[in-house]
């Protein structure tokens, strides 16, 4: 990589921070035992595609936003940026304003602005540049965990007037793009949980037959669902034990809650099922009001589906031109 040493400081100024804008990378490992979750990007495929298009390192930090993204003004030498996901955004220059396309690189000159208006039929979108955001690492990751205030920005989400410095700009960069529409999902595939037997037969069958609705009480920690009440016939609590991403717990009220990237590391509600790794990226993109239907798969199938999902991502990366 040909790194250009710039005399000027290159930076974004945050004119509007957006709803839940943070830095994320692949997250931090091996800290569950002290109560720190992985964190990291919610939608790993879109993260991988973005870094591939921008020819950045595999684990380069990106800006993650939910629903409404940030409005940024750029100061410095010419750079390129790209946005992944299903996102509406405008690029505002001296010549005027144009609508941008996702998975495509655009040039940014001094004084240009990016206004990320909204994600469409999805929750998360990602922005990065052909360079590195100058931010600090905490336990090997730049991911912001707003729950425990871990990460850059004192572990807090973006705020107005924040300055984001960009270093290590890749000067040998050539613009590339990908034609990709993203995937929707009808069924979320799960593996039965360690407390599956805690629930009545009729509830177990409802869990797989009926629709659940994603509620507004969903964020990076978890996704609460609304649907038929799941009746517990043993005990609404278990002795608190470790959780992982994708675990579906049933609360005392009989509602499912799915653990997402910033989840509490320990929980005391029975686990009815766990979302398979292959479906996680598409699960987190479901907006409040969406319907979910759960489908039971075996562990062996889940392992194969994960390999297929990764092959599909690799295939998309190979189509970047």
């Amino acid at each position, binding site marked *: 990589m040909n790194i250009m040493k710039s005399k000027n400081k290159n930076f974004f100024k945050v004119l509007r921070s957006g709803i839940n804008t943070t830095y994320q990378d692949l997250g931090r*490992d*091996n*800290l*569950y*035992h*002290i*109560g*720190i979750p*992985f964190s990291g990007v919610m939608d790993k495929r879109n993260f991988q595609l973005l870094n591939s298009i921008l020819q950045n390192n595999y684990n380069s930090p990106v800006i993650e936003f939910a629903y409404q993204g940030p409005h940024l003004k750029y100061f410095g030498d010419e750079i390129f940026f790209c946005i992944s996901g299903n996102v509406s955004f405008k690029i505002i220059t001296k010549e005027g304003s144009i609508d941008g396309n996702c998975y495509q690189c655009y040039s940014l000159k001094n004084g240009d602005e990016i206004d990320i208006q909204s994600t469409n039929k999805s929750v998360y979108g990602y922005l990065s540049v052909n360079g590195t955001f100058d931010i600090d690492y*905490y*336990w090997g990751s730049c991911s912001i965990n707003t*729950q*425990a*205030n*871990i990460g850059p920005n004192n*572990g807090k989400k973006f705020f107005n007037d924040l300055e984001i410095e960009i270093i290590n700009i890749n000067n040998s960069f050539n613009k590339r793009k990908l034609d990709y529409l993203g995937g929707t999902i009808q069924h979320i595939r799960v*593996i039965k*949980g*360690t407390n599956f037997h805690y629930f009545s037969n009729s509830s177990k069958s409802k869990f797989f037959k009926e629709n659940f609705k994603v509620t507004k009480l969903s964020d990076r920690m978890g996704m609460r669902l609304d649907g038929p009440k799941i009746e517990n016939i043993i005990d609404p609590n278990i*002795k*608190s*034990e*470790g*959780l*992982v991403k*994708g*675990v579906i717990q049933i609360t005392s009220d009989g509602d499912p809650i799915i653990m997402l990237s910033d989840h*509490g*590391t*320990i*929980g005391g509600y029975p*686990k009815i099922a*766990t*979302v*398979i*790794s292959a479906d996680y990226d598409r699960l987190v993109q479901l907006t409040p009001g969406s319907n979910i239907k759960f489908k039971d798969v075996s*562990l062996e199938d*889940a*392992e194969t589906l*994960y*390999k297929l999902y*990764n092959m599909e991502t690799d295939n998309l990366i190979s189509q970047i031109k």
Partner: protein
Amino acid sequence: MIKNILNLGDAALYCDFGNEVNQEVNSSVIKYFYNIKELNIEGITNLTPSYNKLIISYDLNFHSFVSLKKKIEKIEIKKNTILEKNIIEIPVCCENKFALDIERIENKLKLKAEIILEKFFSKNYFCYMTGFVAGMPFLGDLNQEMRLKRLETPRVKVPKGSVGITEQFCNIYSFETPGGWNILGNTPQNIFDTSNQSRPNLINPGDTIKFYRITLDEYNEIKK
């Protein structure tokens, strides 16, 4: 000893040490945790010890359930694994403004506040695990007559530093977070330090905790 290994989803082993929750079972969990951690097995992404379970998360690109299960079953736990056991003293102020649930505890236990606090402070507690949020210790065991259930409706926000009890356990809220424990006081002591990356937790599994009571003036003095 591990009684059984199941899968938790497609990327974690669920090692079950039985249904009992006591210090002996928990010490066995913690020994496994340290022994596996020491092996630095590539592709293991997290180890989560709790009262009587150990969850081992892994990267599916490195392991399948069957292959990792075999590996874990073969691990020999060193008999002489010595757990680091610190004794940590934690100041707690039980003034009314901190003892959010003292009336509820009085009613449920049918004991006067002073008796409850006397019983609470007269005992040392063992740290079974830390987690839920960063640094939160789960401590036990409370005397039989001190045990009560969680709040029916959890609080949306429990203040940082709150000391709570539920069933046979007590805990300290390391952050402001939702929670349903019965709060009887608050500590000015910071128990999770983000800036200390090698040892962010003041309290770790296996440690012994001695709570001692302080006045509001002492609380404010430490808080400075």
